[in-house]
């Protein structure tokens, strides 16, 4: 166990230190190799860590050996270990896949590109593992700045605009978070999460605390792309390089959600959070609005990447809906979907990436009849789409199942109707693509397109397989999500089903 604790911070440090090295390496293959090695290493450590904390233990690692709250500690339980596993896992699968797409989209200075990628990932992981609220801010900015730089690598000039607008919104969000942290600090003198949780009840009648909670939630909601603060997301996802879109879609918003949950449930405690502000109802309303608006806008899109981006807005709604039920079951559903959605979006964006790479377009009307020419890619897309819709035996089905049962458990049967309606809206936009690709004839003047090489397809199919595997074997995901929910709020909410 001691060795595991010693190893745990290297989930973050490995990519963080590999980043600058990567920036120094010349050529194309060397930086890529280093990036793959670093993410794979982080993935292995994350997996071991999760295995070690599934039983409810908490690993604590004090940097510089200064005991918290004097120093900064990493504090890992099932909740953040699961998120860390998702981040590193998705990156490990995507990186080998992405080399040719990066070659096509980032012809120069790939060392910088991979360095930024590693730093962005390290930032996300740092946010996930840390037990110090100011450290959250620092690593949030690390990942954000790297992300802006990565999005700007997109080939379309609108990528620049998307990056700039994300930079403005993201910085406003981070500053809101900073204001919230300021109040927390002023009221308690501490920045350590555990320490804060102990001290906050003493100042629970302060109005400043209410406002602090509000600012932190709003600041993170921007990063989370919670409706109506989602405006940065569609453009950023649409014009970013393919690897970045797939990676961000699978991880970035999840991390923001995780931090929000950590703060709301662990630092403030649900008893305070949901009494001080009408958080449950506000989140529920926004979640439902996001589910419908996102799904509806996804249906209207002509650009495949954009369609999936809006779908992400809707899917974030599901997760937040789970949270808004304020029960361990609901929280478990949120965590489960957090993980599963990462898998499905990674698979979907990765297959769209192959389409973009091979066919040079991701506009739906350009994809007529392409299924015949790229059967493996489009089949992967269709199968991952099934997971998004929530058809068994996919991971998406398990998500829906758990979310529905959490809603019923909370006595909110009407939510079930809304969940199902939006699932069927997902059916509409996925089916539209599948139909265009498979059932329309390829126009005579359309350029010929070849199926991608196996090493492009392999990782996509690996992700698709993961979607099916986790739809059948839920020990890891459901167990992890339940453990995560209990680690976050088990004590405060009582252990549910």
């Amino acid at each position, binding site marked *: 166990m001691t060795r595991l604790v010693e190893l745990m911070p290297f989930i973050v440090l490995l990519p963080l230190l590999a980043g600058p090295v990567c920036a120094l390496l010349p050529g194309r293959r060397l930086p890529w190799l280093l990036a793959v090695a670093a993410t794979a290493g982080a993935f292995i450590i994350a997996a071991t860590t999760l295995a070690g904390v599934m039983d409810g233990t908490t690993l604590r690692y004090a940097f510089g050996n200064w005991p918290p709250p004097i120093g900064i500690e990493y504090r890992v339980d099932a909740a953040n270990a699961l998120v860390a596993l998702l981040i590193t896992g998705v990156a490990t699968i995507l990186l080998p896949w992405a080399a040719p797409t990066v070659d096509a989209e980032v012809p120069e200075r790939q060392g910088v590109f991979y360095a930024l990628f590693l730093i962005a990932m390290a930032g996300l992981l740092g946010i996930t593992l840390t037990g110090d609220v100011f450290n959250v801010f620092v690593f949030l900015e690390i990942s954000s700045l790297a992300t802006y730089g990565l999005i700007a690598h997109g080939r379309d000039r609108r990528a620049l605009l998307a990056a700039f607008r994300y930079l403005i919104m993201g910085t406003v969000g981070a500053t809101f978070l900073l204001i919230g942290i300021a109040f927390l600090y002023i009221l308690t003198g501490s920045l350590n999460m555990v320490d804060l949780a102990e001290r906050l009840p003493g100042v629970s009648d302060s109005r400043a605390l209410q406002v602090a909670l509000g600012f932190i939630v709003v600041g993170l909601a921007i990063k989370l792309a919670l409706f109506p603060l989602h405006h940065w997301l569609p453009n950023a996802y649409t014009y970013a390089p393919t690897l970045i879109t797939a990676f961000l879609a699978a991880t970035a918003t999840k991390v923001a959600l995780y931090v929000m949950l950590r703060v709301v449930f662990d630092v403030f405690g649900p008893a305070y959070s949901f009494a001080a502000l009408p958080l449950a109802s506000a989140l529920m309303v926004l979640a439902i609005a996001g589910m419908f608006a996102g799904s509806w806008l996804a249906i209207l899109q002509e650009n495949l990447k954009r369609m999936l981006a809006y779908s992400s807005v809707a899917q974030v709604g599901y997760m937040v809906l789970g949270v808004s039920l304020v029960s361990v079951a609901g929280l478990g559903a949120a965590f489960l979907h957090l993980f599963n959605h990462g898998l499905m979006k990674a698979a979907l964006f990765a297959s769209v990436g192959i389409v973009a790479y091979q066919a040079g377009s991701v506009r739906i009307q350009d994809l007529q009849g392409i299924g015949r020419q790229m059967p493996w890619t489009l089949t992967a897309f269709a199968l991952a789409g*099934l997971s998004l*819709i*929530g*058809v*068994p*035996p996919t991971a998406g089905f*398990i998500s*829906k*199942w758990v979310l*529905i*049962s959490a809603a*019923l*458990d909370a006595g909110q049967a009407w939510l*079930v109707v809304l969940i*199902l*309606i939006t*699932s*069927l809206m997902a*059916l509409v936009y996925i*089916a539209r693509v599948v*139909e265009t690709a*498979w*059932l*329309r*004839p390829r126009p005579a003047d359309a350029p010929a397109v070849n199926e991608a090489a196996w090493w492009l397809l392999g990782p996509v199919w690996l992700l698709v397989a993961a979607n099916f595997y986790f739809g*059948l*074997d*839920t020990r890891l995901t*459901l167990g992890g999500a339940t453990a995560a929910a209990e680690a976050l709020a088990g004590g405060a909410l009582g252990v549910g089903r």
Partner: protein
Amino acid sequence: MTPLTAVAIPMIGAVAIALAAHRPRLRDGLCFATPLPLFAAVVMLTSAYVVAGDTRAVTLLEIMPGLEIALAVQPLGLTFALLAATLYIVATPYALGYMKHGGYGNLARFMACYAIALGAAMGIAFAENLLTLYLFYEILSISTYPLVAHTGTDKARSGARTYLALLLVTSVGLMLPAMVAIWMLTGTLAFRPEGIMAGRVDPALGALLLVVLAYGIGKAALMPFHRWLPAAMVAPTPVSALLHAVAVVKAGVFSMLTVALFIFGLDYLRGLATQPLMLYIAVFTMIAASLVALHQDNLKARLAYSTVSQLAYIVTGALLATELSALGGGLHMLMHGFGKITLFFCAGAIYIASGINTVSGMDGLARRMPLTMLAFFVGALCVIGLPPSGGFWSKWYLVSGAYSAGHYLVVGAFVLSTLLNIAYLLPPVTRAFLKPPPDDRASGVNEAPALCLIPLLLTAAGTLVLFVLADPAYHLLTGALS
């Protein structure tokens, strides 16, 4: 050997067929080869069950506590599996013959999806619990979607869209939440001979769940969610024949029977407030669909509405909630399967041989295609429920079930519907045999190719054989009920 084998064989076959897409001979060989081991497997499972009562239960994995993917042999499922596996053997040559003769493309995709659909049907038949059944139910919906849309014309696509939308809206929108609710209330979804809801679920809630589930099983085509079935007729006829006369729709009514028997339990079901309501909706569907069928000139559309009506027979049998009526429902599943596939085979054979697809165009056709029309006649007898066809027995038990349950109105409806059956199924026969052919018919029309003709003769013969051999099926099914 476990039921998993039966599920796996067509799935493996599908993969093999898909991989052999560019080698036509190998592909055809694989298509022919797939049904045989499947049939053998089902027969072995049957004999193991009949001889030793061995259910060969196998739990594949546990998703959550009380939620398992598990398979087991049970008599009702065996009946369905036997029906599907037997007809698959004859349907495969028919499908290949039809598709090649009709000049359709993408045979590998077609046959692979066809095989997946069969595998899904096996999964439904051998499901040990509602979740497993739901899993394969959805696989069946999705795997048949490319089949319905196969030609890729605007009409096919819009038909397929209606098809998939209705099936998924009902299953995801209604069946899934009902299932989650039952699981939360009872902690299980396993099929139990006495049902799982009695004593655990408040009858008021149970009444609601009955309505939700009856419509949630959209494949049973209860009005007003029956539109998908006529929409599916845009598919090539082999699809209509095996899938929309047998595998898919029978999966629907099989699910209905299973849910009524093993989830609700007949006693509990009888006590629900909405049971009469749903019963009369089924009866209404039965009559109304027959009336619509009467007005369809398109042969396949007429057969489709006939199917809607016949499915309602079986649903009625389930909802009457007596053992006799459930038995009748189970038998009708079998008998109607043979009868309807014969009719569809004939319709397809007529279409590819002569290009005729309307009832009014069939005048004098028997002179050119005597064997086909004879088979059509036999199939019609079976669907109507007249001896010497197997359909007679199932109707008999359905009617006596209704009678013994005291639902005289339902008895009346059965009789009325039978008369309507005669009214819409016999005219094609009489026109073909008795009316003179129109002058402008091309002289080259002859019987369909052997690959199409032989299967339809076989199934026609099967309906007659079942009249004599109804006893084993009867014994098998009574085992399910006692």
